[in-house]
């Protein structure tokens, strides 16, 4: 069943990560039992065997089904599937059960398990190359990133000169773009689902890129529906429809552009799903990495994250809050300080370019009298006219403040952000 969804939210909320995860639903890894045996012989980790069986099946599986497959493979080694699934579970254990890396299995519903390919590839980027070199991979998706120069000719079709070495002539025939190519493939395989992933969808000129096809992407206007719509493409003159087994997924940074400003023609053809900063995701992802986010070198990262975002929401709006992805790699207080210095403060400087003192408010750098604390992260110094100018004349010059990042962000500086909240 086709879907048209745009995920929108501030930077760092996992939009691109979500698209990557969705892409795995459109990848088929085909390999036979011998390849599983060969891979397991090469690396006899039980988690690998279980994940290969689930990948081969291409669906959620019950532990008994996996166990039955292991019995059929006759590997001569006893493997307890429930133990493997539980030990490498992505979910935290409320009973304190010890977890081991890679944590790649999740229980979709009681008794039904899935392998998270995104986490598997994160754990070992060369996994398929190393253990399944002969597996065939079918990718049933196209991925593009929209930008100002991305055009109709890139997306639908356009004239792109190609040189034919045999005839020594230049061929000016229309060439299919990304969407036309995947539509042709999807049309030939109606039994499978295909997708187009569009990152940063709001960066492109939607009207120009989609052209007349904007009408065709509606789900009830697809090929084979009662309200099927077709257009004649301008270059090839072909009659074109969009097949019903093609989904569109987009991501949009809501801090770049207000969602109200997005092309209205696109708005009503897509479902918009917000992705907000989520401290629960931060907590669970760090837990998977073996880190206690509530006590990272004495810093309560969750409280720090929530406090910064609450202040941004008060001073600006929710579209400009900070995503949890910025902090996912933090393993020490110096990592947190580094994220604040290199990611958060520059972002805040962009948001509050006309009133940098608000950054000090967000980081709680000022005391109740408005004076700078000794542990301030975003500091200021006064620039007095009389200090810098001997002669002012008729110029009306005011004293101002120069803002700069502290070169010594301590644990106390970080704790002060959420102190008293």
């Amino acid at each position, binding site marked *: 069943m086709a879907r048209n969804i745009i995920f929108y939210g501030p930077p760092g909320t996992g939009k691109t990560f979500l698209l990557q995860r969705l892409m795995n639903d459109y990848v088929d890894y085909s390999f036979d039992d011998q390849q599983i045996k060969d891979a397991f012989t090469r690396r006899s980790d039980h988690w690998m065997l279980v994940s290969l069986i689930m990948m081969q099946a291409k669906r959620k599986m019950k*532990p008994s089904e*996996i*166990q039955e497959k292991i019995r059929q493979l006759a590997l001569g080694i006893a493997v307890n599937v*429930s133990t493997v699934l*539980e030990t490498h579970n992505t979910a935290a254990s*409320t*009973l*304190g059960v010890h977890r081991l890396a890679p944590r790649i299995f999740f229980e979709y519903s*009681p008794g039904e398990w899935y392998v998270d390919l995104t986490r598997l590839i994160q754990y070992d980027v060369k996994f398929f190359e190393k253990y399944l070199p002969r597996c065939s991979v079918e990718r049933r998706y196209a991925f593009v990133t929209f930008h100002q120069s991305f055009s109709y000719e890139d997306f639908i079709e356009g004239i792109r000169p190609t040189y034919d070495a045999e005839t020594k002539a230049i061929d000016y025939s229309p060439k299919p773009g990304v969407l036309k190519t995947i539509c042709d493939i999807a049309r030939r395989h109606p039994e499978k689902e295909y997708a187009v992933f569009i990152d940063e969808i709001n960066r492109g000129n939607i009207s120009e890129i989609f052209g007349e096809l904007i009408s065709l992407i509606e789900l009830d206007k697809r090929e084979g529906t009662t309200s099927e719509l077709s257009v004649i493409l301008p270059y090839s003159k072909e009659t074109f429809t969009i097949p019903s087994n093609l989904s569109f997924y987009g991501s949009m940074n809501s801090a770049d552009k207000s969602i109200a400003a997005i092309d209205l023609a696109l708005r009503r053809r897509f479902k918009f799903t917000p992705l907000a900063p989520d401290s629960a995701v931060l907590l669970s992802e760090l837990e998977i990495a073996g880190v206690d986010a509530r006590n990272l070198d004495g810093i309560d990262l969750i409280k720090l994250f929530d406090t910064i975002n609450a202040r941004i929401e008060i001073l600006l709006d929710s579209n400009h809050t900070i995503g949890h992805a910025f902090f996912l790699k933090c393993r020490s207080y110096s990592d947190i300080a580094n994220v604040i210095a290199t990611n958060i403060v520059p972002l805040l400087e962009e948001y509050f370019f006309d009133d940098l003192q608000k950054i000090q408010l967000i980081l709680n750098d000022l005391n109740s009298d408005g004076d700078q604390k000794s542990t301030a992260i975003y500091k200021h110094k006064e620039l007095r006219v009389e200090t810098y100018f001997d002669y002012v004349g008729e110029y009306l010059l005011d004293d101002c403040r120069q803002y700069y990042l502290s070169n010594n962000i301590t644990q106390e500086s970080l704790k002060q952000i959420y102190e008293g909240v």
Partner: protein
Amino acid sequence: MPISYLPYSSGIEFGTQYLTKEAAYFLGNIFSSNESIRNNGRLYWIAPVRYNYGYASELQIEQHLEFVKTMSAPMGAQTLSADVIRGTPLDSGKFRLPGFGSFFKSDGLESLVAAIPGLKSALFLSSWEVQQAFLVGVFDGRGSIDINKKNHSIRYIVLDCPTNDIGKFLFDVCTNAGFNCNYNEARDRLEGGKPRKPQLRIRNSDDFMMKVGLISPKRFSVVQESYMFTKSRYRINERSDILPGLKTIVGE
């Protein structure tokens, strides 16, 4: 006809305030084992399932675990394999054997013996399906099918009971359900050593397997194999309407 359940407070978090079939199944298992652990300051009652080494295949244990987890997960409990439990604070000391255990938080129940009068009363007032589920739970986790190796017949369905109080309680429940059973209290061994555990034995196993049944794929298969030798024919009834994976068997 829908079953009506009796309101009952077990002192264990089952997610229900009634004596449902699923709660009865786990109570049967918990009482038949009397095992608990403390983890992070909380008391957990365990419903263990154990098999002797090499007795059940990994597939049979997985199938059993799946059926049990279908019940335990919605009740807020966690069912974990013995390999995961062994050697951790969750281990009652008895998870060296293959199997698994379901962990239920105590909601005030500190001693099973204290809960016997209330549970007995609630069971005897409950429908037959609830009593059946309790009896399944009693034997499904640690019961054994005692086979006469000469003629393949079933001598008894046996349970080693944890204490005399609990053993007598389970004996009363079995007798009330109409089964012919005997109960041997804990006795010293003639040869010395650890005393024998109190043991509950169901004599009329045919009756038990026809009216109550078992979920354990391995234990059920042992009964079925016996019937293949000792009965002219038999019929297996899937009773997933009572409990997931429950089967009864009727032989002629």
